[in-house]
């Protein structure tokens, strides 16, 4: 089976999650081509061919470039990353190529039949779908291991451009030095139990020491302590870190919906009856103001 993996980049560099997708696609495909929206700084291994336009092209044009590549060769699947831009590109391809598209895929099984597994109802149930025809598959990031890859690709650079009806007026990078919530290996979150906006500094300090992203419950977003982009949960972000640390978060169903795929959860709450303890792997019943300074000091010593 031949697959076409698309990777959209704003700086010509592939990310860890792109490598994750490429590596894992080998479960269903032994002949993988990569298509990007601009030439790569460093060509990667593990694919047979890399297709790029000669100059950089925007996202809408990239979808047309992928369509063109797909029509020219005999691919069974188009595979990409299940992030916001990935979903926009996949939706566009689904319409243009009249192909089914499944997002947020958490596992691929290939025993003669291709079965993909993803969550439904914001993680309440998982569901298996058999893929019976040529399809677009988006894989959830921070889910798959990266395996060693060695094949050297052929690079094919093509002339491609298209008119644009959508104008980018500005772009601000918001993540700064911190990892973004989606795809972060560790996330530290705070809730109303923090008692005041100033105490969110504890969350930031701990996150800093662990190289973690910072999140929040809906309660403190609504109080205006942190921006909405920090919100984890049903109407916020759905995340799947290796470790989630919840500080002063009681654990409402809506919040839990956002962390169902966290691999491990540690909860710190002074109320021993907080629902979050039913859901966490480890619990610390303590006032964060007493406990966190001790933990932070020890982590700082460890860093030295």
């Amino acid at each position: 089976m031949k697959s076409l993996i698309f990777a959209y980049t704003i700086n010509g560099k592939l990310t860890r999650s792109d490598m994750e997708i490429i590596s894992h696609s080998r479960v269903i495909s032994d002949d993988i081509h990569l298509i990007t929206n601009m030439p790569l700084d460093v060509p990667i291994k593990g694919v047979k061919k890399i297709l790029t336009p000669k100059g950089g092209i925007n996202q809408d044009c990239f979808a047309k470039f992928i369509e063109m590549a797909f029509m020219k060769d005999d691919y069974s699947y188009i595979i990409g990353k299940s992030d916001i831009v990935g979903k926009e590109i996949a939706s566009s391809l689904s319409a243009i190529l009249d192909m089914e598209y499944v997002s947020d895929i958490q596992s691929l099984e290939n025993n003669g039949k291709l079965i993909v597994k993803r969550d439904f109802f914001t993680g309440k149930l998982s569901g298996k779908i058999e893929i019976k025809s040529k399809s677009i598959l988006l894989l959830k990031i921070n889910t798959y291991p990266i395996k060693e890859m060695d094949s050297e690709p052929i690079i094919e650079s093509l002339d491609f451009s298209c008119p644009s009806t959508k104008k980018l007026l500005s772009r601000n990078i918001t993540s700064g030095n911190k990892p973004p919530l989606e795809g972060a290996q560790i996330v530290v979150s705070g809730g109303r139990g923090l008692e005041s906006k100033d105490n969110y500094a504890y969350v930031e300090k701990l996150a800093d020491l662990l190289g973690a992203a910072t999140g929040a419950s809906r309660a403190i977003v609504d109080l205006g302590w942190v921006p909405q982009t920090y919100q984890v949960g049903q109407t916020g972000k759905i995340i799947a870190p290796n470790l989630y640390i919840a500080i002063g978060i009681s654990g409402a169903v809506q919040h839990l919906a956002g962390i169902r795929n966290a691999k491990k959860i540690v909860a710190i709450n002074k109320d021993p009856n907080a629902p979050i303890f039913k859901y966490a792997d480890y619990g610390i019943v303590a006032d964060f103001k007493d406990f966190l300074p001790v933990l932070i000091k020890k982590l700082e010593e460890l860093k030295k």
Partner: protein
Amino acid sequence: MLKIGVLVKSVLDTEAKLISENGALKIVSGKIVCNPFDEFAIEESIRIKEKLGANVTAVSLNSTGREDELRYAMAMGVDNSVLIKTDRDIVSPLKRAKVIYDVIKGEKFDLIISGREAIDDNFSATSQILANLLGYNVISEVIEERVEGNKIIAKRVLEESEETYELNLPAIITVRKGINNPRYPTLPNVMKSKKMPLKKIEVNVKGDDLSIYYEDKPQKSGAKILNGTYEEIADQLIAIMKNEFHVI
């Protein structure tokens, strides 16, 4: 006058208890509500109407004939509704988008707004596929917008950045939480909405759909509570992060 469409999906609420019964979905308890993200879409369409003047139509698709969420949208301030009643449930976003496309292509909406995703299947695809079928510009995850003449300026939030785009109308935007605070309909408006125009269109769905075999998720057994002095607990936690979680 600006013609706006808003896509509204009826979904099981967050509190619903759901299990798998031999691969089929079984609802233990739960009620049907308006998809929370679509409430932001409805509110945004009404705000545009209040600012610039517009005719707003809510569009919903289901196999049960349920009108409640469309009535709710009209109680909030939407002018009229279209209910697409299919002869069976549709899961595939491509299929859903095609059915909606067939019904609304003649409406000539200038702008269509929907929530960023529905909380039942979490595909966040139908409205974006619809945009591509209609040949409309599309942008997802919008947190701020303003319509200016035949353009819309939309700011959206990505995982690691914020982008502001200028799009020519017609366009579809999907909106996220933070764009507005949806209003509650007043009682008189709720009463009035019961008599407002709702067009029901029945559609027989052709072809194969995606079929889903549901599975329960492993249950959590409750946290192991770490005991001791704060010093001791901190040491235990660091050891767990190091040896069990391998994160430090």
